[in-house]
């Protein structure tokens, strides 16, 4: 976002103006306030009326935000923008309905909807509350002008193509493309207007980026999992590097760690009896509670006793690995017998 980075280093009045009208045009680049542009501005008259009301609303809101609302809580500010918008739109509706103007029929419910236009709230929150009043007014003017140009050109094109008229006067005998009066036509005109703006920027302002990034944020599960894995890898790598650095700096302190390689635990540690087969008393693997529970229940029922029995001795090794080892003979014996024999051995040793 070119505007965000520039805004931090105090934009000049010229830059504020150019941003509002061209470089970050509210409708074509910021993609805000589309409701009126897509549907209501299907004729030139309606577009002019909507542009006037939108401009007045934007100017008043940005001035109020900059002068009065800087210390207010955010949700109060946002509600105030809408109240100001209503105070601009409602008198216009009242005036038009009093005169029985057909313009009110054309604009329909879109005139009051200008009060809830996202363009107003966005500009006030993004710019006006951080700037002084003159700069806020300039920003409001530039954005209003930028939006008005798009609204009016869209209204002109859609009226001409959709109804064959211009400002109510007949130009073509028959409407060439009636569909242009529909919201579909509004989106289509906006699309081609955005292309024209890009072309204009690339020709007349080659220093500025004409790219309008519109990317989806990768937040699906697979991406999140991938990110998590990457983070974990980086963390592990970082830890490994730290250890390497430590050993490089303090070889004496790191030496015992190197001398005693600790096997990676794959089964939860069981309460270990003092037996000669226990080779690694230093390492303390993290016990997994659910598995432990299961083993207790297994032990109580007598089921899988040999497996558990072995795991008690070789707590830091996996059960499957143990059963593959040729020198293990527990499986060939009767499990109960083996268990009893071992218990006897243990009691003997303890005595």
């Amino acid at each position: 976002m070119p505007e965000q980075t520039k805004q931090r280093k105090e934009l000049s009045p010229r830059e504020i103006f150019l941003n509002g009208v061209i470089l970050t045009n509210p409708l074509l680049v910021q993609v805000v306030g589309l409701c009126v542009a897509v549907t209501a501005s299907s004729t030139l008259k309606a577009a002019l009326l909507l542009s006037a009301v939108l401009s007045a609303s934007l100017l008043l809101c940005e001035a109020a935000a900059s002068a009065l609302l800087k210390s207010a809580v955010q949700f109060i500010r946002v509600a105030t923008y809408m109240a100001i918008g209503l105070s601009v739109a409602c008198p216009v509706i009242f005036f038009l309905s009093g005169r029985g103007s057909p313009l009110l029929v054309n604009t329909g419910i879109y005139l009051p909807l200008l009060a809830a236009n996202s363009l107003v709230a966005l500009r006030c929150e993004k710019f006006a509350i951080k700037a002084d009043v003159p700069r806020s007014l300039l920003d409001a003017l530039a954005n209003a002008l930028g939006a008005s140009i798009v609204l009016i050109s869209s209204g002109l094109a859609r009226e001409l193509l959709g109804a064959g008229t211009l400002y109510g006067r007949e130009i073509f005998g028959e409407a060439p493309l009636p569909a242009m009066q529909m919201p579909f036509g509004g989106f289509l005109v906006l699309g081609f207007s955005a292309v024209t703006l890009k072309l204009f920027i690339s020709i007349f302002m080659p220093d500025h980026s004409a790219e309008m990034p519109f990317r989806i944020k990768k937040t699906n599960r697979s991406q999140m999992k991938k990110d998590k894995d990457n983070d974990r890898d980086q963390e592990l790598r970082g830890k490994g590097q730290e250890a390497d650095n430590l050993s490089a700096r303090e070889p004496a302190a790191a030496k015992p760690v190197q001398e005693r390689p600790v096997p990676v635990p794959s089964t939860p540690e069981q309460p270990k009896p003092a037996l000669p087969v226990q080779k690694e008393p230093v390492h303390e693997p993290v016990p997994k509670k659910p598995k432990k529970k299961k083993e207790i229940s297994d032990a109580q029922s007598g089921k899988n006793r040999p497996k558990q029995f072995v795991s008690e001795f070789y707590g830091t090794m996996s059960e499957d690995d143990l059963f593959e080892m040729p020198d293990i003979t527990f499986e060939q014996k009767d499990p109960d017998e083996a268990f009893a024999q071992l218990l006897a051995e243990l009691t003997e040793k303890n005595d």
Partner: protein
Amino acid sequence: MTWFFDMLQAALYTIFIQNLVFNGGYGASEAIRMSQKPKRFLPFSLMITYFSVATAVICRVLDERRAIRELDDAAHAAIFGGVLIAVFLATAALLKLIIKPNKKFISTLGISALNTLVFAVPLINRNAGYGYIESVGTALGSGVAFILALLLISAGLRRLEENKDIPPLFRGTPAMFLYTAMLSLAFTGFSGSSLFS
């Protein structure tokens, strides 16, 4: 059960035939901007549905009063707008007291409450002369229509991002607008409108 089918009918009409986002343009900018953030689809749509239903019901209750019913369009717009502001402020204050949300949440709440889609629902209900059930149906339908719009735009955005054959000038926002135009055309087909007459 009649009330349920009346509500369902109004909701389905709002979702497909009168799709508020594509055929009415209400909340179009929010839908396009939010389609880039799939993680926030559901919470944002739920917020929109909540505000739509609450505002629609309160506005319908107010419209029952003769003194308000006989007012002109400008007064109605002011009253309905005031109701929406009040609902938003009450919700925000309540949430701030109970869950103490962060700034981002309050900002999202503001965008979801004070937008054209939510504000349009009571105005549409009044213009169509809907009763309580249909008003609730339209409000629920507006939320579902918004989710539908988000999903369709987001799916298209992913395809547009992958497509390397798009000319450089059309990449980004222009392609998005043209794609949305096609979606709008598709929903216009549901309403039975004719393109060439």
